[in-house]
């Protein structure tokens, strides 16, 4: 048995740690590249969403490298994500690849647990007692690493717009993430986190700068994975904008476990409530939250919002329509970036540069003609 999983931002560190700590053999799919995307595009059709294509590409590459068991998060209606596994199974089968599929249920219901039991029955025979006993420890370790990665990334978002030498923060962040990835025990992990934080803080910064505050909203997969959004977060930061986003791997895990009602979950509720000014019903996935977050961020004094969505994404298409109106009503610049398989790195860069320039003009105008 060799387990594999799709890429999503720094999620592979989490999954890898669990497998590693509990001694289950695994294959990390190669970093998402042009080749991954080409494979995914080749074996799907043009109107399928970008996450589908990339996840499929990840699986194909991993299976070719010897993996045989796919672990994939499940999801429910109304978005297409809930049926990815149905279609991807048929596609992989048609390609002649052999695999076993294990779905992690999005919500813990009896039906989901039963299905999970059925799926794992075969796999359990291949696991030793040691694997099973070590699993909770692996889970804990993975979670700690996840939180460490996220805190490093959040710190990098703050440092990046103030860095003196462009690109230095990114370099340091990469190194710091690698240290976290290498940590084998909770003690070394804490050390790695401390070292990484220090290293990021030591970046030469120009404290006199007043960076723009920009929020990234949109479909979670495009928001979280720098390979899919072509490094929007990094690019915006290097153009002098302090980026904020509310979509993190941990928030989605906690949400599905229905934990942490006081923290992030209530933040989602806040966004949802705000969206009611425009949307009368829960459209599904992140649509209402994108709209709600944009509204709230404009109230909180953010300078701009960047809305990310994959081409032909069903809920976010509705959100993009509503956001054009939000932008007009609330006087906040909103840039919608529709991402697809095309090579649009240059285009994204140009759009973001123009967007930041517009923010500059807006700030200048506000200082020359202050609002009464």
């Amino acid at each position, binding site marked *: 048995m060799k387990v594999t999983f799709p890429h999503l931002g720094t999620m592979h560190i989490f999954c890898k740690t669990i497998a590693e700590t509990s001694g289950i053999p695994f294959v990390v799919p190669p970093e998402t590249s042009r080749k991954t995307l080409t494979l995914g595009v080749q074996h799907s059709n043009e109107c399928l969403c970008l996450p589908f294509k990339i996840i499929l590409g990840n699986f194909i590459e991993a299976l070719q490298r010897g993996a045989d068991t796919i672990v994939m998060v499940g999801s429910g209606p109304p978005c297409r994500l809930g049926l990815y*596994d149905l279609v991807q199974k048929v*596609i992989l089968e*048609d390609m002649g690849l052999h695999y076993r599929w294990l779905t992690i249920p999005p919500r813990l219901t009896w039906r989901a647990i039963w299905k999970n039991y059925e799926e794992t029955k075969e796999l359990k025979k291949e696991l030793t007692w040691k694997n099973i006993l070590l699993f909770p420890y692996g889970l804990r370790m993975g979670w700690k690493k996840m939180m460490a990665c996220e805190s490093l990334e959040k710190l990098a978002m703050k440092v990046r717009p103030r860095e003196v030498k462009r690109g230095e923060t990114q370099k340091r962040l990469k190194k710091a993430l690698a240290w976290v990835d290498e940590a084998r025990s909770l003690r070394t992990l804490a050390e790695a986190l401390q070292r990484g934080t220090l290293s990021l803080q030591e970046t030469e910064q120009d404290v006199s700068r007043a960076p723009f505050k920009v929020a990234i909203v949109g479909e979670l997969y495009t928001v979280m994975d720098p390979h899919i959004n072509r490094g929007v977060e990094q690019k915006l930061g290097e153009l002098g904008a302090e980026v904020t986003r509310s979509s993190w791997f941990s928030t989605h895990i906690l949400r599905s476990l229905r934990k942490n009602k006081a923290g992030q979950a209530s933040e989602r509720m806040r966004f949802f409530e705000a969206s009611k000014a425009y949307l009368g*019903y829960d*459209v599904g996935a992140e649509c209402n939250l994108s709209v709600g977050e944009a509204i709230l961020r404009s109230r909180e004094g953010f300078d701009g919002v960047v809305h990310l969505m994959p081409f032909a994404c069903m809920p976010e298409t*509705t959100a993009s*329509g509503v956001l054009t109106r939000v932008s007009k009503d609330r006087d906040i610049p909103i840039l919608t970036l529709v991402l697809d398989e095309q090579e649009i790195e240059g285009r994204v860069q140009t759009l973001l540069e123009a967007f930041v320039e517009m923010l500059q003009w807006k700030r200048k105008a506000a200082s020359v003609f202050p609002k009464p």
Partner: protein
Amino acid sequence: MEEKGRIGIPKALMYYRYFPLWKVFFEELGWRVIVSGGLGRRGELRYLEDSCLPMKLLLTHCMDLKDRADHLFVPRLVSLHRSFIMCPKFRGAPDIVRLAMEESVSILDETIDLRVREHSMLRSFLRSGQRLGATEKEGKRAFQRAEKCFVSFQQGWEDRVNRLPSEQVFHLAPPPEPTETPKKPFRVAFVGHPYNLFDTDVNKDILSFAKNLGMRIITPEGLSEKEIDAQVSDLSKEIYWSSGREIVGSLFYFLSGGVDGVVFLTSFKCGIDALLQEFVRRRLKLRGGTPIPFLILSLDEHSGREGLTTRLEAFKDVLEQRKY
């Protein structure tokens, strides 16, 4: 009874299945129902977001009705089945319409969600009736009449589609008796969302062209839920869109026999169709193909009639070769 005012029903999306029900209900309450015109030859498409063509048409039709109607009827269709749902875009559709109209007209946007008792078809219509000033009793009576009309409308559906010109399919008059007994036509199943099948702005009136080519049109409306369920019950995961289920189920049903050919009409950018089309294609391949000719036509605002007719003619040639 004097006329209370006008209700505008945009000729888009689920108009192409439920129009008789909607029309009779509002007429029973004493309102006049007006329907938007077509896109026309040089029609301009109006839209807020870059959605699929049928969604864009909804807004275009609403714009057309804006000045003529007192209320626009754009229900929020969350679910039209007791356990399955509609495409997520339908949930936001009334909001998008409201934003585009800029508050210039009142919109009847009651939620219809057959999974919840509170939002059943009857209750949702009663609420619409209340907003129009009708009592519950009046509303109930009107709904009963409307339902009766709808049931009788659905009978003889196949004749209606085959004998009437496309623009008259949704007129309430009974279908004409057959005039001549046609020579054995090809029985061709047209599968897709109802608005792809019957909206002539989406499909460039491909159905009447098919009829001219001597095809008898079969639609999934004629299949019972059981027949569809039998085709999709063995999947590893339940397809949770009712329209998607209907499409996949009827495609497999027709492709396993009973018809001479199958045509699948999809809209470009339709998320459900894109995903399920891939699924159907691969699954057929794994099963070792199908003996029945199968054509997938993808439609959008740029597709011309000529392109579609050429492919349909070629499809007919294939059918002929198989038969003789």
